[in-house]
């Protein structure tokens, strides 16, 4: 057991990392008062572009960067539409997903069926030597460590810095934020760019680290799960991390339950991650931890009076 436990933990972390990164980006976007349903589209374009560049340049780090930039690129389009031209956010996001699925297919066309070598794992000196926990938590792919850093950074910026305060103010009540002289539109645009970059990075993680090849549709709905995790977080970054690992953990646990032949229908086991996410939210709510809910101005287009 001490041999396999770190492996199981590592499996869970790999499954949860892309969800967490994409959700973290969307979390910031929604705190700024914008909802972007295009996460799935930005993610798949990130996966395709990341893989394409990694192959062409023969460098996975460059691929990750390219995925991030591709997500950022789509986010620019989204930001122009919803922030500058005040289009409907829900519809624009959904359109972005459709566009992204198509674009990813076009970008990835020439790269179907090509393999890619694994990135060397990072091991944190000393800590990686700790039994069980060490190999699982302190040895891993570089993006996993990056994701932890990003979580800390986002949590810090949102709750402890002036920028975070301004961002949340723009999301909570756009009109009073504007009245106070805050650059609501610029704050939102910046948040959207961050969200796009994270979704793109999460996508590149799929095609370069999680499973190392490109295939259309490989995001397989993970962008939607990321959106659900943002709701699960209820405005708190720690809940987002908890939600991502819970979802990843149950996904992996149910596969173990199946392999152990415990005799329950596999469909029931496959449904567990979804049901348990609802149950966890119910438990949090019954325990008096309702979360903050969505930002006050979420989804409303902002057009300054003057």
């Amino acid at each position, binding site marked *: 057991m001490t041999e396999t436990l770190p492996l199981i933990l590592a499996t869970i972390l790999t499954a949860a990392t892309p969800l967490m990164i994409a959700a973290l980006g969307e979390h910031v976007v929604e705190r700024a008062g914008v909802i972007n349903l295009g996460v799935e*589209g930005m993610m798949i374009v990130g996966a395709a572009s990341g893989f394409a560049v990694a192959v062409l340049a023969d460098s996975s780090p460059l691929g990750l960067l390219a995925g991030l930039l591709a997500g950022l690129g789509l986010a620019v*389009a989204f930001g122009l*539409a919803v922030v*500058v*031209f*005040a*289009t*409907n956010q*829900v*519809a*624009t996001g*959904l*359109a*972005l*997903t*459709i*566009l*992204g*699925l*198509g*674009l*990813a*297919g*076009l970008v990835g*066309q020439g790269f179907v069926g090509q393999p890619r070598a694994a990135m060397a794992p990072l091991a944190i000196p000393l800590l990686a030597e700790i039994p069980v926990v060490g190999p699982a938590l302190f040895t891993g792919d570089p993006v996993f460590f990056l994701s932890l850093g990003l979580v800390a950074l986002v949590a810090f910026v949102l709750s402890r810095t002036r920028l975070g305060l301004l961002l949340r103010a723009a999301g909570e009540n756009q009109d009073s934020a*504007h*009245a106070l*002289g805050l650059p609501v*539109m610029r704050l939102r645009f910046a948040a959207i760019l961050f969200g796009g970059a994270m979704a793109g990075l999460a996508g590149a993680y799929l095609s370069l680290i999680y499973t190392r090849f490109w295939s*259309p549709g490989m995001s397989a709905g993970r962008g*939607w799960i990321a*959106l*659900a995790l943002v*709701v*699960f977080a*209820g405005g708190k970054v720690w809940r987002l991390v908890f939600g991502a690992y819970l979802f990843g953990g149950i996904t992996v646990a149910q596969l173990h339950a199946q392999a152990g032949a415990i005799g329950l*229908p596999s*469909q*029931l086991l*496959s*449904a567990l991650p*979804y*049901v348990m*996410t*609802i149950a966890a*939210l*119910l438990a949090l*709510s*019954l325990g008096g931890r*309702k979360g903050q*809910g*969505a930002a006050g101005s979420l989804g409303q287009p902002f*057009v*300054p*009076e*003057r």
Partner: protein
Amino acid sequence: MTPLFVLTPRPFVSPLRRVLTPVCALAAALAIGGVIVALLGRSPAAAFRVFLVEPLTDPWAAQEVLLKATPLVLIATGLLFCFRASRWNIGAEGQFLVGGLCGGGIAILTHGMTGAWILPAMMLAGACGGLAYAALPALLRVRFGISEILTSLMLVYVADLLLDYLVRGPWRDPKGFNFPQSVAFSDAALLHPLLEGGRLHAGMILALAAALAAALVFRRTLFGFAIAASGEAPRAANFAGFNEGRITILVFLISGALAGLAGVIEVAGQVGQLRPGFGQGLGFTAIIVAFLGRLSPLGAVLAALVIAVLLIGAESAQVSLKLPLDLARFFMGLLLICILLGESLERYRIRFRRAEKERPA
């Protein structure tokens, strides 16, 4: 650094502008799409004809467009109730599936029987199923304050797996070589084509009736007003005597019932049996239909037709122009964004900023 321009609401939108903006949006999308098609070495004119003209002028294709639009109109009409009230039902797909399951269940139970009551019973069961499945997220929100966005979305996956379980297990066709599918429905459980040789069935009439009824509710009834009020300002609506919780539950029930009805119509009209994956993502597509139609029932009908034309055009383009589906999807996303931009420019005027330094008041 001040923005280059600001938007200001137009006090009055002329009818000409209303007509011209979608046309301009279409033209813009076509221009971009045409350049891409030309770069791929195909004729943009042919692409335009295949993609947008033929689905409307060819009688066969036009029927198929109406057929494809039917479930979209029904689901989107239901979603309008939720979205107008700012309740975010993202799980219409799940309600659609459960509706199809309940209606299909009646068809399987009555297999081999005849009777004019079977089809109405299926529709009733489907609507009730969708309604019950939508009640879950509504109740969880009202009672426990759990976001309906998350619950309704998660329940889609659960419904999908439930369908999978049923057609592999209890409802599997005993003569179907153990493939995951139910028996083929009997004649009495099928929605038959209206015209000889075509596939269009009475579902379209139901869908239009639902859209019309919704339009009346929104315009003429207190309930319609309550929904709008609740969507604009929930607290104010509460003061005005509209119970927030009750509205949440009602809009979800209506939306679920219509999605469920659409599910039955799909299995009884198109598929003719229960099988995994009969949802095809229609419940998600309907969300964009609702918003593209600017949350109005008539708009939803038009938007559903636009989407159906594009979906069918994408198939024709693959056959006659050998254009990849991905390109069609890209174009579809582009067109939708152009339409949304156009809508914005219809409502707002662009005022370019001069050198003057404006400080927000």
